[in-house]
């Protein structure tokens, strides 16, 4: 039993530390799960920028500890001020018991699975664990494996290892916790009132249903999907309640962070953000005069975070135009139209993907029905579907551009890339649930 204590300690620290940082840095009105996710990302970005700046590791660790202690101090003061009349310990309803109970079960499952089964999967080891080890030892940027790939996930993995020693499994604990926080965000940001029980049960089912072990296999696709989904959810929630302006800023922040997770994230980030701006152009134009500075701040934040890694590696003289070695280059992407004869083969693999995931088709159809029956959610559903459409098109275009053998490339990557839509299907499913839960045209549920 003693060998469980140390990894459990690592696991609980992942649950607590980003939460404290986020709680101290964000306004208290922000949902707790969002505070955790913000704290989680900001820790990663802090270490990543210090690493790119080649600040000595010892100094960075000490500064990090200093900032964390300040955050602890601020959090304690905030808690005392917020709960002057004592903390209510057992204010738990049945729906929240269901959702938090399911999350606890899921976290226990993920913890045991990660710790009992060492990392497997060649890319997970060579690229992402290799990067995490490079960050852990603070090796020079040019000596990092696959340096053209950004590595926010690997940096967070490395930070956990910096605290608890070089155990790769401890670093992978971050992914299921982030997944849980995504669901808590969906739970706590949406006001469901009298349909709370049904909604909690739906979310709990979705939590288990959409989980797949690739979430913590070291591959970053599911993490990318979660971050993308979070950004989309925040943009949607902002359009429903424009007074909560932090949702727009956080949406921009998480959308930009996609570019720090994987190269494909730059594209997904741009699609998420540009489609949002185009769809809400009319609404935002009305507010533009009053809030122009606010919107520009968001746009700047998005592009600074999104382009951070590309700019950083350019400063080190690395060519960011060779996206994936010599297999995919910018020139190849521009000349992709020459390979339209590949459509039948690519189509076969897409067909196989949807045959393996028939529920996605049901969710897709369900969301279209919801859009027709409930006009209130039409724009939300169109927004998500447009992202899936444009991103799928860009994936197809990559297969037009690749110089690697097409079948090999399709077999090794298509399913993984299409899984990047996972969180968008979760959001679509949540939208469909509204069709069943609400009887009026305007609902209490506002996603």
């Amino acid at each position: 039993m003693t060998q469980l204590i140390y990894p459990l300690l690592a696991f609980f620290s992942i649950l607590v530390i980003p939460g404290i940082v986020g709680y101290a840095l964000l306004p208290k009105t922000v949902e707790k799960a969002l505070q955790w996710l913000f704290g989680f990302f900001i820790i990663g970005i802090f270490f990543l920028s210090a690493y790119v700046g080649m600040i000595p590791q010892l100094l960075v660790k000490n500064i990090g500890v200093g900032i964390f202690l300040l955050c602890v101090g601020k959090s304690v003061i905030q808690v005392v001020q917020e709960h002057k009349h004592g903390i209510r310990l057992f204010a738990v309803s049945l729906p929240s018991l269901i959702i938090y109970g399911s999350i606890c079960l899921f976290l226990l499952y993920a913890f045991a699975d990660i710790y009992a089964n060492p990392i497997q999967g060649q890319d997970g080891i060579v690229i992402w664990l290799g990067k995490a080890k490079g960050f852990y030892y603070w090796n020079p940027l040019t000596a990092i494996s696959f340096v053209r790939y950004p590595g926010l996930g690997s940096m967070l993995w490395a930070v956990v290892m910096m605290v608890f020693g070089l155990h790769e499994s401890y670093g992978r604990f971050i992914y299921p916790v982030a997944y849980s926080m995504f669901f808590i965000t969906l739970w706590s940001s949406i006001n469901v009132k009298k349909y709370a029980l049904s909604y909690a049960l739906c979310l709990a089912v979705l939590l288990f249903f959409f989980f797949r072990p690739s979430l913590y296999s070291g591959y970053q696709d599911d993490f990318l999907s979660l971050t993308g989904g979070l950004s989309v959810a925040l943009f949607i929630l902002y359009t429903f309640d424009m007074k909560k302006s932090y949702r727009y800023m956080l949406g921009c922040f998480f959308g930009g962070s996609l570019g720090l997770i994987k190269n494909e994230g730059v594209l997904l980030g741009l699609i998420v953000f540009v489609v949002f701006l185009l769809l809400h152009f009319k609404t935002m134009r009305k507010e533009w005069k009053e809030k122009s500075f606010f919107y520009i701040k968001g746009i700047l934040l998005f592009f600074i975070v999104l382009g951070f890694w590309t700019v950083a590696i350019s400063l080190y003289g690395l060519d960011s135009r060779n996206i994936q070695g010599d297999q995919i280059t910018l020139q190849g992407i521009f000349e992709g139209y020459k390979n339209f004869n590949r459509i039948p083969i690519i189509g076969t693999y897409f067909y196989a993907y949807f045959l393996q995931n028939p529920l996605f088709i049901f969710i897709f159809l369900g969301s279209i029905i919801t859009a027709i029956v409930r006009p209130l959610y039409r724009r939300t559903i169109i927004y998500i579907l447009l992202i899936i459409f444009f991103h799928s098109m860009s994936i197809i275009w990559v297969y037009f551009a690749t110089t690697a053998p097409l079948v090999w490339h399709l077999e090794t990557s298509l399913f993984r890339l299409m899984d990047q839509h996972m969180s968008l299907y979760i959001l679509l499913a949540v939208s469909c649930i509204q069709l069943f839960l609400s009887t009026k045209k305007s609902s209490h549920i506002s996603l």
Partner: protein
Amino acid sequence: MNQFFKKNILQKFVPQVFLCFILIVLLCFQGIFFIQYTFRNLKQIVSTTEEQRKGRTYASYGYDYITYISSIIPDPQIFPVTRYINYSHNVEMLLPINVVKTDGKVLIGINLPEEDTKEGVITTAHRSEKQSDGTKDYWAFNTIQDYDALTGFRFLMDDVRFVSPIKITLFNDASEEKILGSWIVEPDGKGNKDIVFTLPIKIKKFSFLRGSRDFIIVLEQMKNADVNILNHIEYIEVYGIKVNLEDYQIVHRSGRNFTALTHDFLRSIEKDDMKAWKQFLSQLEK
């Protein structure tokens, strides 16, 4: 009363209860599976150590053997090159040491049969998608696995004899930008249908981490003969060595795993009286 029943019970309450029931059933099924699997994993965690689990998971990577050898290597800057029957598994990423670069002075072979250290057939080339234009003929092959050296080709003709010289150009991939070598294959004078061509100089570091990317062979007939022999080549076999040990001496064997040091390095250990390395060798002998 009837209207109240219709509006509140039938339209709202019943669908809600029905939905909740389905969801609870689904949740229970999922929950049971997750709990079962969690208990199995927890049992495993309690009964084994982290290193034991790694050794078992990475048995095919030779994790225990590599861990042992790397732990007794006297120079922490040296991590051996590891070679497998297929391709590198980068085991150094799994060890608690900082490996920026592997050092070819020491080589570890994992589960390698004897024939993989000798010359043999890598694969058979096939006609490329690119159509022959009469003077040039395009062939392609892929290696998938890692190979140290390319040593030659074997051409097998159909009913026509190999009578005029041909030029072979080997390209790194279909873009035909990087030439790996170019040779002239002369007929042997006996008019054989089966021609084995050995490269005058082996191509070293031939194929690593290629995936299924094709090498391209371009054949050109050198003299105008009555028959275009390019059209009569039935297949081409590609020859090479998977793990080339000609520069190495094996110093330790454990089953099908082995450790080898370069001849040069072994000589310098003797010449410069490198005590730590001598101790390493004697430790291996034990």
